[in-house]
């Protein structure tokens, strides 16, 4: 399963920074992810520093420790108390999620998370751990087994207390009010992404305020276990020409989103599967050949030049005025979770002619570079297959 995670935030209306802090990190080698949401006492810069410190410490502690409970307990016992208000200086929720569905959660002071499975709210059991050093601090520890389609929604008290004191909602939105909105939204859009759902929650909270201004820092983090969005890229002709048909069929039959990068590759698939390639508007944009079209294929581009430029955009960002083929390819890659490259190993001698005005890199090297950036910077799962 793929863990889709995102957070949306809004700061208190008169502040210039966020008093809640969200942090998450994936560990692809262990198929796990750690997410932390911390709410710092008060608002503005002070709250921001408190929340940032708490979240950063927690992430590092949980990362280093085999035991999330112990790591959180150490933090709970050591967080200082605000000198002015005599209360804890930040609250937190930590989730340690595995791709097989095992989730461990520790909460201290934040509103209880919401666990939605099959369109219903599940109220899981938990154990309470009291703080040794502070009487009013208690951790709730959960151990869950999530399945495909399940969601966990974490929020700061800015969400559950939205509208507090207003004539309609004397006690604010509360957890029960938020649940009503969530269930309705998920019923309407069963596949809604974590990013969209988190934004929706923050919007609901702000709209609950009579004057549409956030009275407190408002954050929502959503964790959604879903099927990964797969993408398959065929680039370069296979080394053994007799296998062209086999590879073309395998590529076309895949249920993943498909892209072809390379003129020869596009011709090869067109020839083997009898699907015409259309270059109706063959205008190049940004000194790159334009995209072509093939039925059943989501994107068809030129090869090396477009791939090289896509690597540049992935590395440094896209700042061109006009969207070109490399931009399209970048979007294609970034909207997927698991990316597989079928890299044809046949070389086109003409590309290495010293008379060419620019140096053309070897396909394998560009793809290797691209895979590394996609893995390290964008946390994608990348598979390379040389054919």
């Amino acid at each position, binding site marked *: 399963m793929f863990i889709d995670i995102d957070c949306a935030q809004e700061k208190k209306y008169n502040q210039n920074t966020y008093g809640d802090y969200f942090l998450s990190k994936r560990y692809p080698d262990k198929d796990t992810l750690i997410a932390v949401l911390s709410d710092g006492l008060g608002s503005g810069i002070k709250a921001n520093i408190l929340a940032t410190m708490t979240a950063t410490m927690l992430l590092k502690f949980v990362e280093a420790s085999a035991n999330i409970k112990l790591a959180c307990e150490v933090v709970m016992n050591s967080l200082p108390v605000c000198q002015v208000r005599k209360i804890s200086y930040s609250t937190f929720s930590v989730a340690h999620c595995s791709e097989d569905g095992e989730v461990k959660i520790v909460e201290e002071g934040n509103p209880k998370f919401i666990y939605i499975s099959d369109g219903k709210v599940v109220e899981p059991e938990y154990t309470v751990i009291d703080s040794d050093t502070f009487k009013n601090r208690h951790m709730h520890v959960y151990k869950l087994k999530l399945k495909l389609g399940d969601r966990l929604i974490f929020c700061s008290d800015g969400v559950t207390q939205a509208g507090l004191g207003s004539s309609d909602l004397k006690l604010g939105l509360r957890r029960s009010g938020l649940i009503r909105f969530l269930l309705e939204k998920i019923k309407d859009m069963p596949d809604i992404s974590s990013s969209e759902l988190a934004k929706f929650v923050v919007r609901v909270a702000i709209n609950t305020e009579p004057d549409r201004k956030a009275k407190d820092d408002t954050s929502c983090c959503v964790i959604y276990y879903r099927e990964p969005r797969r993408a398959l890229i065929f680039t370069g002709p296979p080394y053994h020409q007799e296998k062209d048909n086999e590879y073309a069929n395998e590529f076309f039959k895949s249920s993943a989103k498909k892209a072809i990068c390379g*003129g020869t590759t596009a011709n090869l698939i067109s020839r083997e599967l009898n699907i015409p390639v259309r270059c109706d508007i063959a205008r190049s944009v940004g*000194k790159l050949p334009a995209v072509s079209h093939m039925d059943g294929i989501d994107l068809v581009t*030129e090869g090396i*030049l477009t791939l090289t430029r896509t690597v540049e955009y992935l590395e440094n960002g896209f700042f061109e005025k006009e969207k070109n083929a490399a931009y399209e390819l970048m979007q294609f890659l970034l909207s997927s979770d698991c990316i597989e490259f079928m890299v044809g190993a046949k070389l086109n001698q*003409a590309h290495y002619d010293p008379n060419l005005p620019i140096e053309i890199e070897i396909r394998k090297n560009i793809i290797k570079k691209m895979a590394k950036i996609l893995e390290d910077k964008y946390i994608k799962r990348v598979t390379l297959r040389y054919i």
Partner: protein
Amino acid sequence: MAKVKVKMCMGTTCFVMGASDLQELMDIIPSKYGDDVEIQGVPCLDLCSTSSEAKAPYVMVDLTVVSKATVESVLEEIERKLKNGQE
């Protein structure tokens, strides 16, 4: 008279060797010849990998290959085809 079909290679080698400059043909041809000549881009004509010498960019005018193509040489070839077609 049959239409003259022009295919312009948009593959990597041709593109860097000057096909990017040939794109003005996309404007010139329709305005100059109207419906008599049809121009389209193709992902690759597969000529660079088969030819022993570097002669990109390649453009096909019907079945004739124009190598080291320029706007002028492609227009010349089109004129020749149109003239032959009329005869």
